[in-house]
């Protein structure tokens, strides 16, 4: 019984900590997801090269580079936000964003801002599609009627962006050439 209570308390505290995660606001009052990452062993050029690969290869379907300099990348992108019912769900909308990356020797920073939400609606064929082309800024507080639903959208977006940020950090920390080399290694079962 004690264990059950303990598990419940741990689960509850995890849930509470999950709820506390929220966007910061930038100088213009817009939601921003901002990270500075120390990357001691990597040069500015390597970081930039990997970031370019992330935008143009890994996320080529949902991101488009707008401008690239020798220290920075500006890209636009969209991500689909899901509505979950038990273990299944469906897309509830998409969030478009501006992605900014800046590199220096040994460290880099990136942020996502200008978050605009476009809700999806099921079309005549059972597919979820955008209801409009005009997005609503995520930081805009809705009326009371939709406050709960909007809070869910903001939370889902934060979780999705956090996942995106972690993937980006992992991508930049990984040497793709080394990874590809490892993949091609073969294991012989003849000798042991």
């Amino acid at each position, binding site marked *: 019984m004690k264990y059950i209570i303990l598990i419940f308390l741990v689960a509850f505290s995890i849930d509470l900590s999950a709820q506390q995660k929220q966007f910061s606001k930038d100088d213009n009052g817009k939601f921003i997801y901002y990270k500075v990452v120390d990357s001691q062993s990597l040069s500015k050029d390597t970081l930039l090269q990997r970031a370019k690969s992330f935008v143009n290869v890994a996320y080529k379907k949902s991101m488009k580079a707008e401008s690239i300099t020798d220290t920075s990348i500006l890209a636009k992108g969209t991500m689909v936000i899901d509505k979950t019912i038990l273990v299944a769900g*469906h897309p509830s909308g998409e969030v478009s964003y501006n992605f900014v990356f800046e590199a220096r020797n040994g460290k880099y920073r990136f942020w996502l801002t200008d978050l605009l939400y476009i809700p999806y609606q099921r079309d*005549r064929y059972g597919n979820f599609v955008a209801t409009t082309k005009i997005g609503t800024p995520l930081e805009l507080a*809705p009326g009371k*009627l939709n406050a709960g639903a909007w809070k869910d959208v903001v939370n889902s977006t934060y979780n999705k962006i956090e996942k995106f940020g972690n993937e980006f950090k992992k991508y930049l920390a990984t040497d793709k050439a080394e990874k590809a080399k490892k993949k091609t290694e073969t294991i012989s079962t003849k000798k042991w």
Partner: protein
Amino acid sequence: MKKLLTAIFAMASASCALAQETTTSPLEISGSVDTYFKYDFAKNPLNGKTSFVTDHNSVSLGMIDIALKKKTGKASFVGELSFGPRGQSQSIPDAAANNSSFNIQNLYVNYDFTDKFSMTAGYMGTFIGYEVISPVGNFNYSTSYLFTNGPFQNAGIKATYKFSDKVSLMAGLFNDWNLYSATRGVSAIGGQLMVAPVEGWTAYINALSGAGYGGYGTIIDLTTSYQITKEFKLGLNAANYDIKDSSVQGSYAGAALYPQYAVADAVTIGLRGEYFKAKAYGTTAATSTTALTLTANVKSGGLTFIPEVRLDHNSDKPFFNKSGAIAPNAGQFSLAAVYAF
């Protein structure tokens, strides 16, 4: 029902577990439930000449609609079933006798050969027209004459090529309208050109020729909508249907305009103004109806309240007044609640 839910849950769990190891998308489950109250000003339920919302002075049911979708790699399926008057006896086809069956809204498989080219086969919501069976897909709760007289669904096989985000073309071969299996073979050919000239404006030019309502005929349809500002959206549907045999009832022409304005974050008000002409057939003369429908959508999360006032006019007097005599005008008020999940 319990077994069905268990099966769905098991499938969903399996797909979720699979999703952690592969790029397969999880099983999508969505749907809607709707109910309504309608009051006919002449207290006559026969004054409703379009689909659904048939009952007078009654809290009545629409339907429960459940859709499943799954995509694995380039292949996907959609299966969508509805239960309740809107999806059964009032929809076509009603699969079993005594109006006791369900209606398949969508049942098809799709394969994306490339990012631009895909093929779809099965039973699908029609590509013709502005309005659909599902109340979630419409702004107004009652339906237009153009919707009621056009096809609801088409079974067939179609190919779609997307030239760009602004232009795509669909062509396909179809059964008769609204039938799970063909009675006259795969005997209709259809196509759709989609153009999106500017951001927010999409237009579909549709054609379907072959076996349909009233024999063989050809329908040409324009369906377009333009989100002009964040608040204001304008939709238009115009169609013409000619049955080859002019002695058969069913040919029509008409147009409907759909201006909608969001007055608040959760409240949108819209008008549907429609002109509909049932064409002459045999010795019967043509007759025209104009209908004006004022609708509000009040949204709170997944729930939408839809109060609506509808006025219809036809100088040939197809309606009835309070005393039961024929009349040129009809009017109704309805309040619907639609929950989408």
